[in-house]
């Protein structure tokens, strides 16, 4: 196990290992997503209170959880980069930021579309919405900081520090918004209509889209990290050989 993890820390091994299981991951991810989305959009029974509008949650809930979870992953990678100076960890963290910010943006948008039916407006300053907005800002900050540096090493270390500061801040942000919300009396509640009233079939597609979107996180992060590896290791012999191979194949 440790041996395996240790090997993943080497850019070359990361690249080669991901080459072997990328087709599998792609297949499983697409399968889960297609089944989940088709089922959720067309075959899951209608929510008796909210009608078909509720079908947005099949993407909304997994995306929101994903956005949060990608940040945690990014912070773990940042810590590994700071403590052990593992370069691959930083490349993964850089990829995580892009994937995380896109998940966060889509979660906010789908949330607004879903909320219009419940609250009558697209946006309310609810604790969850506010926290995700701030999570979105923090992602933007990490990406902006990284792109501001010319030197790759400074950029990676600075982004790691900010990521770690952000992970300390996130629970406080959530707690602050919950408290703030009780002060200002929220206009409505967030939960789906009384959960007991819904048949379990309504929830099954969520597992498919949920695992599918987690698979998609890994897929996207790996694809981006592989590009990053090729570019940062461009002087290594194995990358040069690989480029020659690609050239002859083309």
């Amino acid at each position: 196990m440790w041996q395996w993890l240790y090997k993943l820390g080497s850019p070359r091994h990361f690249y080669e290992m991901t080459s072997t299981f990328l087709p599998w991951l792609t297949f499983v991810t697409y399968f889960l997503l297609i089944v989940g989305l088709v089922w959720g959009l067309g075959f899951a029974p209608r929510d008796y209170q909210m009608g078909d509008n509720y079908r947005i949650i099949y993407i909304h809930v997994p995306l929101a959880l994903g956005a949060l979870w990608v940040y945690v992953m990014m912070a773990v990678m940042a810590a590994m980069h700071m403590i052990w100076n593992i370069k691959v960890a930083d490349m993964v963290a850089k990829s995580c930021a892009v994937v995380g910010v896109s998940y966060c943006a889509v979660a906010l948008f789908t949330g607004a579309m879903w909320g219009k039916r419940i609250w009558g407006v697209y946006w309310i300053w609810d604790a969850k919405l506010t926290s995700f907005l701030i999570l979105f800002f923090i992602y933007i900050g990490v990406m902006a900081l990284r792109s501001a540096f010319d030197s790759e090493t400074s950029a990676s270390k600075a982004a790691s520090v900010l990521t770690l500061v952000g992970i300390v801040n996130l629970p406080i942000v959530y707690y602050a918004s919950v408290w703030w919300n009780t002060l200002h009396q929220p206009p409505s509640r967030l939960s789906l209509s009384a959960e007991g009233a819904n048949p379990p079939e309504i929830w099954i597609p969520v597992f498919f889209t949920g695992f599918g979107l987690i698979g998609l996180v890994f897929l996207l992060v790996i694809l981006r990290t592989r590009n990053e590896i090729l570019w940062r290791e461009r002087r290594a012999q194995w990358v040069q050989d690989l480029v020659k191979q690609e050239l002859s194949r083309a």
Partner: protein
Amino acid sequence: MPDFQFASLGDFFAMGGYAFYVWAAYLFFFAVMIWNLLQPRLERRKVLKLLQARQARESNAAARAGE
């Protein structure tokens, strides 16, 4: 196997009157995820092309130095 919940395809697109919200959400989702999936592939092509150009440059320089 659960049944298809809509009487017709038109019903399916109407989404029980919530067509705008549901389809806007899914459209944005698909747009972003397709960009997410395409961008790394284009990036990979770009990186490989850049690296190939570098190799060609370097081998040219080496050949010239050898003359």
